[in-house]
């Protein structure tokens, strides 16, 4: 079976590197983007199996990216994990309203992210 492809969008280079490394180590192909616009473009061109999306992004915030993808019938089935340091209840509510499949608050316990990714991909295949 092919490796699953994950698009990781975050404006923090260090986050991209550490989290990306973790995902690769867990057996995924990782594509990264460092702003909202790039994230949306890569989501369309790379056709990832899953998107991990930071909320606070330059150029276009995570809500918008998520909303764009979820409104498009071609991409709406790609699971999206929202990823933020803004752990407010309102943020969580908004994220889920635009169609995010899961929501992880920064900072997180490293195993949580991988568990969530596995769960969503399994659900999508099933």
């Amino acid at each position, binding site marked *: 079976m092919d490796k699953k492809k994950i698009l990781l969008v975050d404006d*923090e280079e260090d986050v991209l590197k*550490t989290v990306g490394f973790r995902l690769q*180590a867990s057996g995924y192909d990782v594509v990264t983007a460092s702003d909202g616009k790039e994230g949306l473009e890569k989501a369309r061109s790379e056709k990832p199996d899953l998107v991990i999306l930071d909320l606070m992004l330059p150029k276009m915030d995570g809500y918008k990216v998520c909303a764009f993808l979820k409104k498009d019938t071609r991409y709406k089935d790609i699971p999206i994990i929202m990823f933020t340091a803004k752990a407010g209840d*309102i943020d969580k509510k908004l994220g889920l309203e635009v169609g995010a499949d899961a929501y992880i608050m*920064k*900072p997180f316990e490293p195993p949580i992210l991988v568990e969530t990714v596995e769960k969503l991909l399994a659900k999508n295949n099933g």
Partner: protein
Amino acid sequence: MDKKERQHKTGVGKKVALLIFFTTFIVLAIDLSVEYGLSFSLLHRTIGENHVEIANLLAVHIRESIEEKISEIIALSSSPLWKKQILETNEKVGRMAQDERARYFARMDSAWPGTSWDDPSLSEFAGNYLSIRLKALCDDTKDIREFLVTDKYGALVASSNKTTDFYQADEEWWQKAYADGKGGIFINNIQYDESSDVVGITFALPIRVDSGEIIGTCKVIIDTKSYFTPLASFDIGKSGHAVLTDSEGLVIFHSGVIPVEQRLLNYSELPKGAGSGHLIMYDSPFHRGKRQFIAFSDVFPSPVFGNDIDWKVFVSQDSSEVFGPLNTLMLQMISVALLLIAIIVPLGKVFGGYFVRPIHELHIATDRILEGDWDYTIDIKTNDEIEQFAEAFKEMIVNIKNKQDDLIKAKNELEELSKGLEKRVEARTKELSDAQAAGLNLLEDIQEEKRKVEKYSKDLESALRIKADFTSMVSHELRTPLTAIKEGISLVLDGTTGPLGKEQKEFLDIAKRNVDRLARLINDVLDLQKLESGKMVFSLAPEDINGAVREVYDTMITMARDKALDIVLELSEGIPKVVFDRDKIIQVLANLVNNAVKLTDKGRITVRTEIKDGLLRVTVKDEGPGIRKEDLPKLFRRFEQLEKGTERRTGGTGLVLAISKDIIERHGGTIWAESEFGQGASFIFTIPIVERKESYGEDRTYNG
């Protein structure tokens, strides 16, 4: 209203009298009307039946007289000598040819009027045996006025007197009596002959031989006056009399007076087909318009002769005479009724007065009390509602009196008070006017102060907002680097990047633990800041507390078992759903269980849910070192660490219990700790069980 004027009002007696008067009047009026009606119909029937009976008797008498006469004539006519004479004539006329016979009859008739009965030319008729016999018969009996016999051709055979003509076959009676040999008895209507003053009735009957063949006829005119004698002499009361009418309804006989061509009534006015009956005739020309009470009876109830004759006997009496006694009776009864009313009305007034007297007494009492005589006693012993009323009235007076006393007392007190108050007001007014001048200056100062306070509060507000924004911003900014740090440390620590030595691992552990603590601290500060600023959103909905406890158990049990501790759940069954924010309560439970696990080295942690004193109560009990009494109040304060080292043991920030307290209090509950130092501690919180319908169905967009 003037007192005297009132005392003279005694209308109830009059009203009772009037009431009795009208009631009696109406009852008597109805009674009299009904009685009149009943008596009238009774009288009508009784007298009617009585009169009908009389009419019947009279009718029977007339019928029997006539029938008797007919029998007599039939007996006479059956004599053989009569028959012999008739047969001779029959033979003589029979011998003639048809046209000869006609000529004979015409010749006889034309000569008949001019010829005397004594004339020898008529001796053949007037002088024969039968004529002599008939003449003798007429002379002997008073009632037979004319008696003639014909042969079967209608020719005269014999007669008591000279007849008007010779040939009789053209007469009605003859045709009825002979009728081609099948004739019968004929009775003509009664005729009155004024010149002879005879009320005549014509009988005609066939004369037969033994074989039944009719050989001739005879005709008799009878003066019926004597038959009607009972009618003539009949009377009832002053106006009652009998009348006989013929088939045409014309009066034949009327109490001895012979009327001519007068009609008592049209038979069509009588009940159809009734042989007898009675009625009231309202307009009788015969009686000059006087109302008549009439009874009637048929003389011949069934047709017995060759022709139908319909005679009737009437008994007629003035209606006013018949019903006169009734009117008299009615007048008497009305007199009695009026007398009764005349007796009852004054009695009613007396009774009315009797009922009024106690009320009148009460009235006097009211007046006396109004005049101020509060001690006036009412003594009414009627043993009825009025006495009850009087008792209630007495009670009311006592109450009013008490109230009045109270009022007077209160009024006096009030006056005292008001006097004191006036004095104080005076003094205070003076003080105030003194102070007024100074006050003006003061006002300016106050306004200046107010301006300062307003500015200060504005500054404070913006400072607080900056603080909140700052806290929030700083926390967010701290989180992102922490993510990278944690991930980096983890990647090295869990061997993803390759193996590492014991000391490297130990120090990286320390680094990881402190990074975690920092992350928690940031979260707690954020939570607390949100709780304080009211920005924390609570999603309240009816929830199952035991479910929440089990969820916390699932996340905590691994950690507890790592320390060889057990978590025991004592969950009460049948706890209803309680309204709370599931995530927040789970957060509080997790904090309490986490603390308990961290602080206990040996033994177990018990989580209990129950309903106590109408509240949901959750207890988290540990078997750790316990808390000193003096430390109990400090527990829920911010950054309050009881003992150096506790923080390290619990990994707590010192904010967890403060946050828990805020969350529980936001639910309307309380949280506290109970402990004996050295014997473990219990952390207990309660949540009120309230129906919060407005919260039910509130948006619950996430579930932890």
